[in-house]
């Protein structure tokens, strides 16, 4: 590992804490009845979003998934506007029209979560095409679940990205399940990154719960991608600690599996230990960061709760430009 600047390390930790505690707040407020509908939590997967997005430039682009809060936060979203959206308020990113699965902030480079599995595979690829055409130097990270790699549109998009050498990273967060379907039953592969071979692009599998590995890998490949070496399929091994959505009876997974991942491989605890051990940071400093993060989240919840709903007379606005 090259020496990483302390600010970067602190930010990685801070982003992960933001994601974790934001998700916990969503969960709690759902239980309290403040959130109608559903959401898909990224608890346990903080390192992939935080590490990868920290490694690209601010004006680079991402597309996200139904499990998108983490990507959104790592891309610098305003937690107030996110929480307000999840609460369905008019002050949210989408005025309450989109909700958790459709948060986007195009001007900030977040081209949107997506309710359709792999629904953004083509969109991300098109953004990479446009970046290339416009010579903007931007690259795109297309976040995908493990299950998403089995959708046809991903195949079509990856092939075109390969032939046109587009500046895009398909970042597959392999959290072991697509809803209740273990990825080992949904594909016949040891490594999902082997899919890359079918398009003659680079494929890599990394520990997605080690934020530094994610950060360093994406730093390296993003430079290649930016230099025009073509797309990469990066598989980050991680685990979905919570159920698929806020309403999942979890009939399908072995008792204790989630708990084991949380105790043994929690990306946040691992990183904290590493930082302290390597002397980058002290426990009081961590506590301080955590406190600030929690304040921000509390403020976001307060903002959301106090925000008005959109007047129903405006329901059919925003359809056409």
């Amino acid at each position, binding site marked *: 590992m090259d020496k990483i600047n302390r600010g970067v390390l602190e930010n990685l930790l801070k982003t992960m804490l933001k994601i974790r505690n934001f998700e916990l707040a969503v969960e709690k407020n759902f239980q309290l009845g403040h959130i109608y*509908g559903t959401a898909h939590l990224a608890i346990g997967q903080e390192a992939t979003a935080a590490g990868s997005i920290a490694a690209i430039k601010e004006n680079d682009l991402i597309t996200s998934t139904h499990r998108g809060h983490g990507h959104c936060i790592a891309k610098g979203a305003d937690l107030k506007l996110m929480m307000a959206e999840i609460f369905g308020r008019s002050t949210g990113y989408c005025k*309450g*029209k989109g*909700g958790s*699965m459709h948060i986007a902030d195009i001007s900030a480079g977040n081209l949107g979560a997506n309710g359709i599995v*792999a629904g953004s595979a083509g969109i991300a690829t098109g953004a990479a095409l446009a970046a290339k055409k416009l010579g903007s130097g931007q690259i795109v990270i297309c976040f995908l679940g493990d299950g998403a790699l089995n959708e046809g549109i991903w195949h079509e998009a990856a092939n075109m990205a390969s032939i046109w050498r587009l500046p895009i990273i398909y970042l597959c967060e392999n959290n072991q399940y697509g809803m209740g379907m273990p990825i080992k039953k949904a594909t016949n592969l040891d490594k999902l990154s082997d899919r890359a071979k079918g398009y003659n692009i680079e494929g890599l599998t990394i520990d997605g719960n080690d934020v530094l590995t994610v950060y360093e890998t994406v730093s390296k490949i993003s430079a290649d991608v930016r230099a025009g070496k073509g797309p990469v399929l990066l598989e980050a091994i991680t685990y979905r600690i919570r159920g698929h959505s806020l309403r999942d009876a979890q009939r399908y997974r072995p008792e204790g599996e989630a708990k084991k991942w949380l105790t043994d491989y929690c990306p946040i605890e691992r990183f904290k230990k590493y930082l302290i051990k390597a002397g980058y940071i002290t426990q009081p400093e961590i506590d301080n960061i955590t406190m600030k993060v929690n304040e921000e989240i509390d403020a976001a919840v307060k903002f959301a709760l106090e925000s008005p709903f959109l007047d129903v007379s405006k*329901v*059919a606005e925003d359809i056409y430009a």
Partner: protein
Amino acid sequence: MREISYAEAVRECLRQQMQADDKVFMIGEDVGLYGGAFGVSVGLIAEFGEDKIMDTPISEQGIVGIAIGASLLGMRPVVEMMFSDFTMLPLEQIANQAGKMRYMFGGKAKVPIVIRTPGGGGIGIAAQHSQSIEALFLHFPGLKVVMPSTPYDVKGLLASSIKDDNPVMFFEHKLLYPTRADVPEEPYLIPLGKADIKREGSDITVVATSFMVQKSLKVAEKLSGEGISVEVVDPRTIKPLDIGLIAGSVKKTGRALLVEEACYTGGFTCYLASEIAKHCFDFLDAPVLRVTGLDCPIPYEHNLENAVIPDEARIEKGIKEVLG
């Protein structure tokens, strides 16, 4: 008879049909241990095993293609598409392959597949998981389209759909799953193409589909207190359409209100309205009106969502408008 839910009625029908005919099997995303996103198939995998309750990768086009191919060899697959919105992905396979194969092959193929899928809004999951897009499938020859509105109907119509030798699109509704009613335990068939008068009346005919049948019945009940006699007709299968029964009712009452959850432009009731105009022109005392979803994607937030989907107030207003 015992009271069971719409979801239980679907499950019971699946169980009975799989027991009766070993060519019948289920295939879809998370139909196994997960039991389906709405729990419809919970427990079936324990009963029938992985061979009959096939969990698939997330690959909607492939799933439908596979069902078609299996059906050509005599199997009778019942596909579950987790949300009706996702039927857009395999549309080509459904409409262009399954629906046209028999014709293109000069009458020499049978494609007995059923695609079950929950449509509709109401649970706060926004624009890509809440649509009512059954009208798309109306437009393609070769398909049948079923929209059961009660636990009793869903069981009998699903059984007929599974026994049918043609591809059938079978639209359930998320909000109907928990609704309960008396359902016979033994298997029974309700023929495809027969509408049902859900409530008799004489002043106006309300034709409604799926969950809108339930809402219309509530309004009819309420209005009976005001001396308005509303006949509620449920087409049950929108393709083939029992225009005979519907037109008969409209000729009797002279007035019609059509209610559906789908977007206003291009919904099923457009077709229905044009058929009623054609069959009942000289019997109509007022224009046929339609109460439908707005031409708007389904929003996330609850009040907004409710503003898009027809509610009882809008149905009542529609009835009164037609009555003049």
